[in-house]
């Protein structure tokens, strides 16, 4: 199944947009020296456009199509009401520079979301500005850098990062101008404490730790780690990609983290959009709060006229209950404020507001108990799958996992079969493959995160597929090497794509 490129559907003179006539007198156009000559965009009719994209959508696999156990990405179901909420006119059609009195609803939503994230994580402050997880990491490392510099500890320029970390951790560290020092993992999948101790000194700015880590394991020595790092003068950065394992289970601030990002597009059910947009709010302790990027939303008590709903330009302290009874009510006024010693803004405007609306809706619908239940079931689902699948595929770190686990994608008596083959064969069974070849410390890694929104029946169907694939691997491995055969295309030649770069459509 292939679909023509949009340019191949083009014919001169077509247009799928219906624009108004000019209703004011035309002005003289600029001189030709400023004007462009051609504009090589496709020309298609509306029906052809719609069919083109519907065809493309049918060549795509999303959570709404089927099981998507992509480890580390928390591909949980994205509630439909979130989409309706983000599209409400008053949210979707407000300009970021409107006067604050015209966007109190937006600012209130952001303020309350800030409070919710603080309540869930135990931190004192938050900035909603970072656009995604990696963006939050860069933010956090820059905050740690600013903190040390403000204390005359500018020589601290090393960030300790376990070998199981996401690739974004070292990349963010280097972007912030720091050196990264890799730490080994021990045989139980924890940070190797001896290796940590050996690398602690007065050049260490901090440590980036994903907990539970990318093996899906909660570090058994976590409190020792945070203690050691703090004792050496470093700060703990938490990679919150796996916060879906911790809602209502533990508050990272209480566990000893100083600054951390959250992924609203993972934990808080906002859709992944085929690669984004995400949202990566950063939460921090009071000691780091002043360094947060901004602006952030603050609230202050104020008086409103009951009749008009307008804010009164008077301090609440002046408010005399007897004198003004019936005329005023107390409420909150929301405004944007830059933290005092901010590292600066990390993007234009205030963050991914549309994503915040979705996450806010989710949190308000679930409440504290519902969020905790989501975490409990995410961990239940992962352990259930692991308890069965470890009998079929090697499980390198065999202990209770949190929301995900990592298998070796190899089959006994089928030496030619790799994790990639198993993944591609899963496609033929109508299932999205797990994350492959990550974390790097597991050979032929298959990283499986079922999430809490999947039923036992779905999990059992996945077990059934994985069982049959192991059998096929022994009996007819070619089936796996040839897979997928039930997808819109077969295996694609990635080497050719990189060697013979074709990055845009060109007219023959």
């Amino acid at each position: 199944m292939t679909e023509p490129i949009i340019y191949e559907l083009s014919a001169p003179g077509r247009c799928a947009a219906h624009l108004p006539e000019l209703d004011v007198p035309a002005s003289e156009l600029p001189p030709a020296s400023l004007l462009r000559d051609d504009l090589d965009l496709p020309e298609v009719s509306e029906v052809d456009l719609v069919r083109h994209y519907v065809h493309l959508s049918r060549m795509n696999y999303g959570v709404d199509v089927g099981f998507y156990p992509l480890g580390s990405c928390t591909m949980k179901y994205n509630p439909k009401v979130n989409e309706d909420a983000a599209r409400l006119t008053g949210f979707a059609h407000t300009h970021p520079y409107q006067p604050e009195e015209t966007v109190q609803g937006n600012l209130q939503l952001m303020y309350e979301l800030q409070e919710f994230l603080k309540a869930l994580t135990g931190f004192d402050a938050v900035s909603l500005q970072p656009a995604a997880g990696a963006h939050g990491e860069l933010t956090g490392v820059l905050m740690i850098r600013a903190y040390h510099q403000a204390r005359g500890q500018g020589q601290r320029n090393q960030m300790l990062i376990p070998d199981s970390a996401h690739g974004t951790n070292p990349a963010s560290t280097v972007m912030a101008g720091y050196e990264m020092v890799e730490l080994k993992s021990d045989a139980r999948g924890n940070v190797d404490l001896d290796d940590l101790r050996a690398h602690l000194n007065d050049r260490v700015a901090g440590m980036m730790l994903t907990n539970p880590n990318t093996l899906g394991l909660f570090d058994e020595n976590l409190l020792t780690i945070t203690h050691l790092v703090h004792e050496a003068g470093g700060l703990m950065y938490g990679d919150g990609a796996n916060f879906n394992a911790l809602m209502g289970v533990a508050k990272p601030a209480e566990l000893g983290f100083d600054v951390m990002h959250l992924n609203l597009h993972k934990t808080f059910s906002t859709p992944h959009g085929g690669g984004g947009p995400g949202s990566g709010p950063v939460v921090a302790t009071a000691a780091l709060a002043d360094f947060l990027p901004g602006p952030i939303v603050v609230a202050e008590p104020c008086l409103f006229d009951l009749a008009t709903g307008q804010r009164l330009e008077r301090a609440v302290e002046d408010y005399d209950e007897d004198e003004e009874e019936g005329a005023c009510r107390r409420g909150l006024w929301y405004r944007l404020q830059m933290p005092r010693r901010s590292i600066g803004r990390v993007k234009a405007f205030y963050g991914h507001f549309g994503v915040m609306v979705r996450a806010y809706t989710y949190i308000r619908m679930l409440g504290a108990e519902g969020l905790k239940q989501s975490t409990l079931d995410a961990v239940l689902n992962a352990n259930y799958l692991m308890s069965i699948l470890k009998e079929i595929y090697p499980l390198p770190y065999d202990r209770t996992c949190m929301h995900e686990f990592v298998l070796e994608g190899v089959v006994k008596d089928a030496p030619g079969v790799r994790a990639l083959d198993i993944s591609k064969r899963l496609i033929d069974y109508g299932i999205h493959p797990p994350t492959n070849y990550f974390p790097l410390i597991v050979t032929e890694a298959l990283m499986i995160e079922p999430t809490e929104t999947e039923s036992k029946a779905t999990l059992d169907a996945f077990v059934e597929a994985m069982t049959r694939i192991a059998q096929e691997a022994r009996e007819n491995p070619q089936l796996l090497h040839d897979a997928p055969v039930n997808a819109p295309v077969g295996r694609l030649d990635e080497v050719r794509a990189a060697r013979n770069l074709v990055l845009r459509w060109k007219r023959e």
Partner: protein
Amino acid sequence: MTYVPHNAAERRQMLDRIGVQSVEDLFSVVPERYRFPEVILPKPLSELEIMAELREMSESNMDTQHAACFLGAGAYNHYIPSVVDHILSRSEFYTAYTPYQPEVSQGTLQSIFEYQSMICALTKMDVCNASHYDGATAMAEAVIMAHSVARGKRRKVVIAPTVHPEYRQTVRTYTQGMGLTVTGDETLENDLEALVNLVDEDTACLIVQNPDFLGRVHDLSGVADAVHAKKALLVIACDPISLGLYKAPGDWDADIALGEGQPLGSPLSFGGPYLGFFACKEEYVRRMAGRLVGQTVDTQGRRGFVLTLATREQHIRRERATSNICTNQGLNALAAAVYLAALGRCGLARVAQLCYHKAHYAAQAISVLDAYDVDLATPFFKEFIVRCPKPVAEINRGLLDYEIIGGYDLGQVYPELEQHMLLCVTEMNSAAQIADLVEALEEVAHD
């Protein structure tokens, strides 16, 4: 209220299979004194209740569909054809993630390939990536890339004072650990000629915005030659809608073209999510950040698409990657692609011309008012500077009474432009709205 499907019997079966009594037993590794803390959040709501509350909250805002919006300054109120949101609402697109498994992601991959193709055509550049978070972060990544092209040896970045102020701030935030000097934007007196003169052997790049933040359009002839003579790169930021009318960054021989892609089919949404488009000359493709989609074939020789040159990226190259970017703005890039395809060659030119003529008409009409001054001599596109008789915040407060969202207060950023407002007029503003604006401006001047 949750989205979890298990009933009690299923939970029991699963716990038995695992071999634990209760689900809480799975958390014994969490230090006991911190395990299961109290979390205080508002009580759960049903769909009906939360939507009622959100509706009320959203309706307490003034929005651009009920008020006339003349505010731009980097986020623009443009028409979004109905097809755009219908296509974005296909959940095969919006509930997928990064297309690491190309066989089941051809929809995402081909649509990004088409996006890349259309952005290249629009900017007249060779290659384009799959998006950055927004225009500001795209600019910060351009600086990092220019620094990398110079192999880290050039430590100066010259940036025009008329680049969006928040982009300039973002560039400074990103580069604070890199030991770079960002200069050129200290005063509005630094015009193109002055900026070009600041480019020297230690300069990685010159960054200009065209149309600039003040809405003005510049003839950039000779700028690239002067910058290239110093072996520096020329980075041009632009409004993609302006490219329906004006010369493209490629026409000016830019090395990197970038900008805020929001005008291409993403709603204002109080500042995000938007997308940064980023395109460059082919010779620099391996130093580019972000995802790239390339064409290839499958085992049967059929055309297909994959993520390519992944060895630039963090998940492969870790600390040696060109950037840390992972999640990007995929769905906004899809919106931009659908928008560009829907408008096409004629439609985008038409939108640009509607903006141009309406903005010039409005500027002319305001210039007639005694209390206001408009510079009609400097070429501009859809935004222009209006000198006001009193502080812009006061004017804007007055305009709200007429259900008009006024312009951007330039005095916040440029001390020399105190009491100057940046007004934006697009195809969304009817002749009647423009007439109302002119009348309201006259009224509020005398209040």
